[in-house]
């Protein structure tokens, strides 16, 4: 996964907001995940498929931090979410 990767939410993921926390469940695997504030913002930004670079630009507008740090931490978060089958890569943008 890199800046040009295009990602989207997995189709079979359910979400619920409970006491301000976004809780996700992959309905195929049955696995649960709770998102912190940043994870929840990433999830909201992925309401539509987006390239990682676009996502980082959106997050930079919300959170303080240099671009390189935001990119590095966002990719790490996305990789974790992908490993839990919450998001997936589509065809990379040209």
């Amino acid at each position, binding site marked *: 996964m890199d800046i040009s990767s295009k990602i989207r939410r997995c189709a079979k993921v359910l979400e619920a907001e*409970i006491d301000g926390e976004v809780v996700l469940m992959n309905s195929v695997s049955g696995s649960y995940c709770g998102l912190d504030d940043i994870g929840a913002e990433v999830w909201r930004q992925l309401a539509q498929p987006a390239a990682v670079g676009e996502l980082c630009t959106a997050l930079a507008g919300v959170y303080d931090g240099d671009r390189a740090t935001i990119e590095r931490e966002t990719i790490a978060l996305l990789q974790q979410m992908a490993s839990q089958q919450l998001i997936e890569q589509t065809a990379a943008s040209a």
Partner: protein
Amino acid sequence: MTPSVTATGQTQPYWLCGWRLISEPELPELNHRDDGLAPEISIRFAEVPEILEDPVVRTPFCSVSKDGRALITIAAVGRFLIRNGTEILVQPAQSAQPSAIRLFLWDMAFGILCRQRGFFPLHASCVEFDGEAVALAGHSAMGKSTLAFSLAARGHRVLADNVTVIDASAPHGPAVVPAPSFLNLWRDSLNNAEAGVAFPHDHPECMRPEMGKYQIRIREAPPARPALPLRAVLTLEFDTMAHQPRRETLRGLEAVRLLTSQMSLRRAMVALWENDILFQHSSRIAANACIERLISRAAFPELETLTSFVETSVTRCPLPA
């Protein structure tokens, strides 16, 4: 000595959680029904297979088939086949006592039936606080029933024992459907708890001598409403190092995980859910009720202290956001 079970083919009509039931086994826990309408649920004596074909899950006592039927097998008591949320077939073991059959009917088969009928069966006793339901959850022998008994002695109506029936889809928020009003207590709990009890109840019935389990049926008018809003789920835990009881509020993912871990017959029950339905139910309950751990050093030696702590905790439960 109570005679062992004999199938007669005769049934009696009862009310069960507002459902119309006919039952071949006599069920003194339930109120009789005289509306003459067709039943929604039947409990009958019949041959029950020893195993299910193609089980998707099998535990020491329970197996579940692909089509959602559940088979419960209890040595020296009998087998229960629960299907479609409308039927429980019971094949008693030779010399099984009626009380033993009822014990496992309520402890196990009832929870399965409720799930098949679309409800969330929580492994909990439940009492009423000012028109709302408070469930007392926890693993077996944590003192749920004993604590419910102690709260009942202070005027809190018993809404359920061992299986709390939650309608997670109720229009105004998750609600508890009152179940048969009894408590199954261990002999030492009964001895410790019964002194000074003022609420009306039948003389304790010994359900299973070898287990030392007794049933107290509570005689009072049922709640005015068919379902009470679920205020809180309090999960009892012990910590021998705890100097005094304390509470921990759970939110979000922690609350959802605790609820699913406290489902009645959890391993078998998970097989009876589609994942998305389970998530919908558990997340709705977590979002609308106060989910807490109550941690104390022990239940029985400090029962009065724990009971007071529960009463205080309920008043301090944070309301949903």
